[in-house]
């Protein structure tokens, strides 16, 4: 009996030193419980099941069969997985720098006090809350050869005959374009808040020291903004690694997944193995998902390790 009471008080002590703080903490727990339970069942459980499924051979209709690590062994020698990874990395390369530079530019411009700034900020944010599917359909029309807006604009140049939606050389550009277009607003908001947190006194001091506009940007804004830049970069890379809807919708009109798999991203490949192929394999698809997760995790850890060399935190927060 005393043992149980001891355990309970131990657990309660985790929530604070005094009975009052514990009671407050308990209320807090009660209030977040509905969300947490929902998250656990609809997110946590499926995630855990993915681990289990990845060890099975399962086509979704016959009973699953435990096969140990066989899916992962196949994965290690799967050329298609490697191709999908290459395509995904290319997309990360196309989208992340572009969206960061553009978002920073927009944030800098919209940080200048000008009339209608609020309206403009909203305008840039609208793509973020637009459905990716709807946006992708619109962009598909823009890139449509012959009749699309883009082919009209470049009609007199050598780009006029480019088959953006079918040619494996070009198919990633429309996909990257939607992604960048949709992400700029979100990154912009982060950059704006970062910019506004930079104390004006630093700029004043720099001006007194004779720094010109470029120098103030280079030596004050950029370093002070680096924690935000880091955050934006981590989020952007993860986002681009998971690209699916854009690729799905944009390629749907001609060849789903792109001609010769030219737009088969990692997520698309997972989807194909789970729901499209003649020999469906939910187990293998789960293994693909886990491999994708591991790669993203590794990249993020590397970024965390490298950040100390370029991210500047005031008052030595970098150690924390």
């Amino acid at each position: 009996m005393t043992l149980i009471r001891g355990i309970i008080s131990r657990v309660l002590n985790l929530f604070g030193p005094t009975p009052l703080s514990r009671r407050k903490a308990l209320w807090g727990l009660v209030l977040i419980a509905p969300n947490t339970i929902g998250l656990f069942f609809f997110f946590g459980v499926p995630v855990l099941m993915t681990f289990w499924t990845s060890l099975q051979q399962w086509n979704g209709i016959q009973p699953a069969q435990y096969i140990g690590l066989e899916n992962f062994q196949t994965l290690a020698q799967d050329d298609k997985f490697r191709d999908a990874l290459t395509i995904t990395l290319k997309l990360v390369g196309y989208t992340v720098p572009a969206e960061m530079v553009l978002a920073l530019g927009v944030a800098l411009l919209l940080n200048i006090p000008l009339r209608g700034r609020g309206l403009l900020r909203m305008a840039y944010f609208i793509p973020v809350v637009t459905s990716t599917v709807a946006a992708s359909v619109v962009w598909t029309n823009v890139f449509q050869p012959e009749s699309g807006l883009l082919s009209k604009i470049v009609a007199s140049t050598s780009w006029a005959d480019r088959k953006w939606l079918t040619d494996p050389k070009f198919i990633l550009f429309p996909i990257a374009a939607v992604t960048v277009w949709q992400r700029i607003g979100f990154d912009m908001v982060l950059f704006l808040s970062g910019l506004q947190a930079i104390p004006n006194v630093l700029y004043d001091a720099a001006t007194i020291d004779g720094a010109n506009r470029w120098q103030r940007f280079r030596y004050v804004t950029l370093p002070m903004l680096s924690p935000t830049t880091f955050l934006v970069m981590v989020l952007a890379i993860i986002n681009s690694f998971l690209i699916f809807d854009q690729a799905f919708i944009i390629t749907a009109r001609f060849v789903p997944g792109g001609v010769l798999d030219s737009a088969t991203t990692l997520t698309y490949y997972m989807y194909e193995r789970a729901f499209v192929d003649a020999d469906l394999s939910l187990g293998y698809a789960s293994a693909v998902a886990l491999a994708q997760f591991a790669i993203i995790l590794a990249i993020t850890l590397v970024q965390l390790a490298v950040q100390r060399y370029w991210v500047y935190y005031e008052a030595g927060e970098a150690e924390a």
Partner: protein
Amino acid sequence: MLKNKRQLVVLLVVLMISALAAPVRAQDGEELLIQPQPCDEPGTLTMWVWDENWASIIEDSIAAWEADYCPGAEVNIEVTPWGQYWDLLRTNAAGGDLPDVFNMSQTFFYFYADNDALLNLQPYWDEFGVDTSLWGSGLVDPYRWGGNGDLYAAPVNWDTITIFYNMEMFDDAGLDYPTADWNWDDFAVAAEELTVGDVYGAAVYLEYQAGYPNWIAATGTTPIVDAARTACTLDDDGSLEALNFLADLYNDGYMPSISELGGTSADDAFNFWASERVAMITAGSWKLTDAIDQVDFDWGIVQLPQNPATERSRSIVHSVGYVASANTENPDLAANLILYLASDEGQRFFAEGGNVAPANPSPAIQQLWIDSFGDTDLNIQAFVDATQDSQGVTVFDEIWDPINSELVVLIFDLDFPVETAVEEICSVVEDELP
């Protein structure tokens, strides 16, 4: 006045034919192909379909079944649009919870049969005395399973392919309208003559069923995959002959590229034709209603041209089927319902509804379908004739769509030589074969 008289005559003819077809149970001299049976014991069945129009037709026929053959039975019909139908079906199959009776497509049959999800209907066909060879082989062969070729589905309908052509363009080019005995050479000449300005002569390659596989079938080769699903046939001589014939027309500028058509769906070709950008297209019988409603120029229907060597004009046929779940609690009742829906009496509802061509080959039923399009000079009979020498679907599952689109994009958009494109695609196809 004359027009009214003509309508009256047509009406009378339709009424006469209906009068012949309606009292089918009476068997007044008319030979019935499939006779419904009273059910042993009424019960409740669930049924899934993907097409709203079908659902209302099926509801009418089921009401007749309940009234005449199975009083007390109840069928709950659920309609799920095609896009979600197969996802939902697969999920339910995984849970061992399929509807008792549901619509099946030949492209998906293999998956469900291979996973033992379907009820074998062959014992019932034997019991009911239905000779399953009464249906054209293209309609039922893809629904046969197992060593004995047991038939697991009852075909509901058929879709065949013909050529729709713009008569005004033929007039302008000074060409005679094509007839059923024309061949590929005649077709190529017409395509060339009809290409004027930004109007193309033909667009006949898009999509599996409406496109290039028809031309391959005409050479006597089974398109894409052989019937046993063991090998890619795209690199066979017949396939290469057909694809090169089409690729030549494309390279000579008589057919538009896929980018110009705006997509890889057969509807893209149809819309191109309906907006008078191309003179001839391949089109399925499911497009008849749209064409009659939407097209304001004079147009005609003709069977696909014959291959000069084999002298065969062949259409890919697809037939939707009724199947029952292997786990149904009421197999006898499910089979009884399916028998009724496939019978002369049950198929009448489809024939009269138009749009859907009934699978039951009884000439009276077929005529009923043709007449359902009303007073028209169109050669709708061409679709019925195309069922004669038809080729059933040999492709498999959803993976076929991307592979098929890939082949046509490689040849008809990115200008790959046929041999190179075929090599690429065959390696993908052989990857997917069991």
